[in-house]
Structure formats: C-alpha cells, structure tokens
C-alpha cells in the first residue's frame, strides 16, 4: 500500500500534500519507473478524501511528466521521472540550510566553522556508506 498520509493540522491543500509525498517517494527511489499507482477511487478511499482531490494530484504529476495514465489500464511512474526542477531542488535545500544557518548562529558558530563541519560530515557519511557497502558485499551505484 502506498505510504501517503494526510496531515490536517496544517492547512496545505490536500492535493498538494499528495503531490509532494509522491514526488518525494519518486525522488528517493521508493517508487520506480513503471510502478503502478493506485486507482483514483482506491486512493480516495484509503485516505478518506474526495476522489476529485486525487484526480487533481494525479493530473498535476502527469503535467510534470512524473506519471502517465493509460486509458482503461492504470497510472504508472514515468520512465525517466525528474521529480524536482532546478528551482525546486534549490528551494528544498535552501529551506533546510536556513534552519542550519539559524541554529548555528544561535549556538555561536561562525560561517567558516559551519562549512568545515559540513565537509567533515560529508566525509564521515561517505566512509560510513562504503563500510555499509562492503558489509553487504555490494557497491553503491549512487554517487
């Protein structure tokens, strides 16, 4: 079952919540090309929302080239989906970085120290991934 949920404590339009979560699932590889998405009725009933909301979300994703619909057959993830535009990628990362910048200011770090720490963390994560890869006996294809 598709792991999507509706959060009603914030006011984000429901169709947008679905769009964002599906983009995220595609971006992180949890949905891969040619995976079939649930029919509109099924997802509407799973989430207990108006079917038109699901229609709108699917239409939006289709317009962005992330999914395609075959009449009478179903809705699938596109062959080469590009979930985020350059602008969107930048916006998502900027939001994350903003929190880091604010937090580091509050904790009294200089910008240089933050950049150095960022490099250090990157190195640590790379080594960690290599070790994981060796343990599993596989090599990570992802950069």
């Amino acid at each position, binding site marked *: 079952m598709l792991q999507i949920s*509706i959060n*009603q*404590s*914030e*006011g*984000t*339009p*429901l169709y947008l919540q679905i769009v964002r979560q599906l983009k995220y699932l595609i971006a992180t590889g949890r949905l891969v090309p040619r995976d079939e998405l649930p029919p*509109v*009725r099924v997802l*509407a*009933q799973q989430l*207990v*929302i*108006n*079917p*038109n*909301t699901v*229609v*709108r979300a699917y239409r939006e994703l289709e317009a962005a080239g992330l999914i395609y619909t075959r009449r009478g057959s179903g809705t699938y993830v596109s062959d080469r989906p590009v979930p985020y535009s350059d602008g969107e990628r930048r916006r998502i990362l900027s939001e994350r970085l903003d929190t880091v910048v604010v937090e580091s200011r509050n904790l009294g770090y200089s910008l240089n120290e933050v950049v150095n720490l960022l490099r250090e963390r990157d190195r640590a994560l790379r080594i960690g991934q290599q070790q994981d890869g060796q343990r599993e006996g596989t090599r990570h294809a992802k950069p």
Partner: protein
Amino acid sequence: MQSHEPETVIEVTGLSRRFGRKEALRDVTLRVGRGQVFGLVGENGAGKTTLIQHLLGAYRAHTGSVRVFGIDPVYDPTAVLSRIGYLSEDRDLPTWMRVIELMRYTQAFYPNWDETYAERLRQDFGLPEKARIRNLSRGEKAKAGLLVALAHRPELLLLDEPSSGLDAVARQDILAAIVRTVAEEGRTVVFSSHLLDEVERVADHVAMIHEGRVTLDMSMDDIKAKHRRYVVRWREPRATCPDLPGVIRASGDGREWGLLCEGDGPVFENAVRAAGGEIVESTTPTLEAIFVARVSA
C-alpha cells in the same frame, strides 16, 4: 472534472424564512452542480437544517425560490424525494423495527431500491439483520440511516450532520461511505457539518452560514488559494493592529501578531512593510481557522 459548467441540481435564490420573530434564513442564494460534494458549515442554529428542510420541501419559501432538479419540492414532493437520499440529524428511525425490517419497509417506498447493494452496505457497515434499531449504538444507527438513504441509489444525497455525536471510528466509517458514494459517477452530495476537518477532507465546495446568511460560498480550491495566515513582527510593540488590506481577523499583542487574510498576498505584504512590520511566517490556514476567523470577526 469537466471544463463546462455541470448541470444544476439545486438552485436556491433569495430564500428567506422566519419562524415567528426569528429570522432563520436571510436572502440565501446557492447553486449546487451535479457531482459536487457540497459542505454546509455553520454553528448550531445558523440555519443549516432549515435550509436542508427547504430542499426536501418540508417548508414553503416565504421569499425567494427553491428548485431541486428544476422542480419546486413543495409542489411536487414525490418527483423530488424519489431522487433524494436523506439522513436527518436525529436519524428518526422506527426504533421498534429490526434492521432487516427497516430495509424491507424503506424498500417499499422506492421502486429503484437495489437489494444487492443494500445487502452489501449492511454487511460493510456490520449491522446484524435481526438487531432492533433501538439496541444499536449511535454509530450503528447513523449507518442504518445512511444505508436506507443510499440503497435506492439516489442522484442527490442530503446529509444533515451525518457524524455528529459519533466517536472517531464511526465518523471515519461514515466519511468513507460518503467518499465511496461520490466515487460512483454522477452522484451529488450536500452535507452539513460543524466538524471542519471532515468538511475539508471530502467537500469540493463550501458554503458558510452564519446567523441565517451565507457568508462564504466558494470552491475548496479557491478558499485555500484566497486565504493566508501570516505572523507579522512589528518594530515596536503595538496595542492594536494597523489597518491592513484584506485582514479578516488579527490577534496578538506586543510585537508579534497573527493575521488571517483574504485576497492579494503581495498587496498585503507591501502594506505590512510600509507600516514597519516584517512577515515572519506565511502559511495556508486550515478551513477551521478560516471559519473561526470569519465567525468571530
């Protein structure tokens, strides 16, 4: 969704209604198109039930007109009611009957009654055939009421507070049944509720009624696009909020204020800057926040 305007199912024009000295509805004008899920929201006593009673032909319009399927329900109730499924707020089911008897009894009134569908609903809702209505829980009574409202596959479903007084699980079941009904083509649903999160989930159009008047009548998409909640931080503490365009409700004191606004974002944002403020937060409000702001404004 189609690009052309869907066929009109309900048309209420300039409807006013008094009960003695109390004005229950004032100049209400609404249109419901085929396939819409139309949410009527308002506080208790705002006029939602009175409006639904008018759609059923139970009250005569004092001023204005009511048309359902293009027909005046007061003059031709049979023609209208045979195409409507109705769940009343107090459920008013015959309590001495068993579930199966209620089904057979209601079936007699509707030539279009679908026995297979009725039986499927009974099983889906987990209603025992032989149980007496009076012994059912509140949630089960609501489901029994919904079953007899749905089983003749009406074109229009009128639900008056379908989940009021129910626990979370029963509410979810009722809501799921509504969603399933909508998923079947061509079905139109009008439901009243004071549970705004529920309306936000299933309605695609919302009318807010306050003291007998329609104070907002918009598609859910437009409601979401046209309202915003801002947190504004002023340079100096303020006892009152300066006059800003589109503000429905301002709350706060000192430097930080929460403002719920309608209309043009950039115009508002410029006005805030001109008045010496900074916008520190900007979010889409929930339907509930919009409703509360409008009612208490």
